[in-house]
């Protein structure tokens, strides 16, 4: 191989690196309260000593949990994310991750199997060929990143709720928890009501082509009612569970519901 070649024609390398650097968490992210501690006035709000940054951190965590509850409350399972015509698709659609595309999981589709665990009747693993046979739909929706940028893309795949029905999942369970092939173990919990949303999709294609590596080959979970980081790529397993198992970004402080 002469040069490092990117698998995705149209993905701009500079943009890609820029994007991944931006997402790189700051080394100081664990001390994110430091900036707030100086605002002594905050004690007005909490009545607690803000100089002790852990109490501010605790307050913010509690508010974030409260925000989870508020979002779950106003979530309407029938409200659809806006869809767009093909002409509205963002080209090139950005690659975005906390690593370079060269370091993205390189999954061998022939060996890959989707593992199904937890509160389901049928725990059989699924090959890609089997999954490709499921009835699929195409949706053109806006992907909104937690960073603020957004891009419109076309995703094709099987509605997750159909699959959950097919495997006899207990849809009264609280979460579907996804694990990904990323080497540091990307994972993310999806609340069951969002998992059952009509537009939530097990995605196998982007722009009518087999999902490229940049966008999560072999399978991405596309959730147009969630921020981008709750749309896991390179998915290797799903678990139906009542336990909150945390997630890669959720554990670092991104709001867990992060719904649109």
């Amino acid at each position: 191989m002469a040069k490092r070649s990117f698998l995705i024609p149209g993905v701009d390398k500079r943009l890609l690196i820029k994007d991944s650097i931006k997402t790189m968490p700051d080394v100081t992210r664990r001390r994110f309260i430091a900036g707030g501690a100086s605002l002594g006035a905050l004690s007005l709000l909490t009545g607690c000593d803000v100089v002790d940054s852990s109490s501010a951190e605790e307050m913010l965590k509690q508010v974030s949990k409260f925000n989870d509850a508020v979002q779950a409350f106003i979530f309407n399972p029938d409200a659809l994310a806006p869809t767009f015509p093909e002409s509205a698709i963002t080209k090139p659609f950005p690659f975005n991750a906390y690593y370079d595309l060269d370091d993205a999981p390189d999954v061998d589709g022939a060996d890959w199997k989707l593992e199904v665990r937890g509160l389901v009747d049928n725990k059989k693993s699924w090959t890609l060929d089997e999954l490709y046979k499921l009835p699929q739909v195409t949706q053109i929706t806006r992907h909104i990143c937690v960073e603020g940028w957004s891009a419109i893309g076309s995703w094709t795949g099987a509605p997750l709720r159909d699959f959950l029905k097919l495997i006899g999942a207990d849809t009264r369970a609280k979460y579907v928890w996804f694990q990904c092939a990323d080497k540091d173990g990307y994972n993310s919990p999806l609340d069951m009501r969002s998992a059952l949303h009509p537009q939530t999709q097990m995605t196998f294609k982007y722009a009518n082509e087999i999902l490229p590596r940049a966008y999560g080959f072999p399978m991405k979970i596309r959730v147009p009612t969630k921020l981008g980081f709750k749309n896991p790529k390179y998915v290797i397993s799903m678990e139906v569970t009542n336990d909150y198992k945390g997630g890669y970004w959720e554990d670092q402080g991104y709001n867990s519901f992060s719904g649109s």
Partner: protein
Amino acid sequence: MASLTVSDEQVRANPAKVIQPVWVRIMHWVNALAMILMILSGWQIYNASPLFGFSFPREYTLGGWLGGGLLWHFAAMWLLMINGLAYLITGFATGRFAKKLFPITPAGVLHDVRAALTFKLGHDDLTVYNYVQRLLYAGIIVVGVLIVLTGLGMWKPVQLYYLVALFGDYPTARYVHFFCMAAICAFLVVHVLLALLVPKSLRAMIIGR
């Protein structure tokens, strides 16, 4: 010999003139705190994906990284929204808005702008806002409403899709949100500067008189 005591009648005749009622003062300072938290955490969020060719200096951002900035932003938003809503309701219900902010006439604004620029705009009676003040205070309330509506729209672009639709689309709402922030910052600079130039107005916002 003149009596040193004051009769009830005299107190009623010369009540210490309250310029800023207590609810205005409380809501003003809560809003000031909420705005500062929202702006500094908002700059942190902006820096994650700048709309323009610049970023805000790290020292002026809150939260340390994007996740921390978001936690602050989505916590302080409650303070801003609840306080703001209470302010709007009380402002309309007590007639304060009608009395102090209106009418705003173009002629009045022009006259007072000219007077201000030639340093002839008096502040003898702090209970009456001049036309420049009326325009700015009414204007900043409108900006405050816009920044909350665009913010809510971006927070819930599916559930509150009509808010996003009101501004066109998601990216447009983001720009409107940014420019409202810029307007608030510009207001803040002028507002603080003038309060320092007319210290009795600052005193009135603290002790009421």
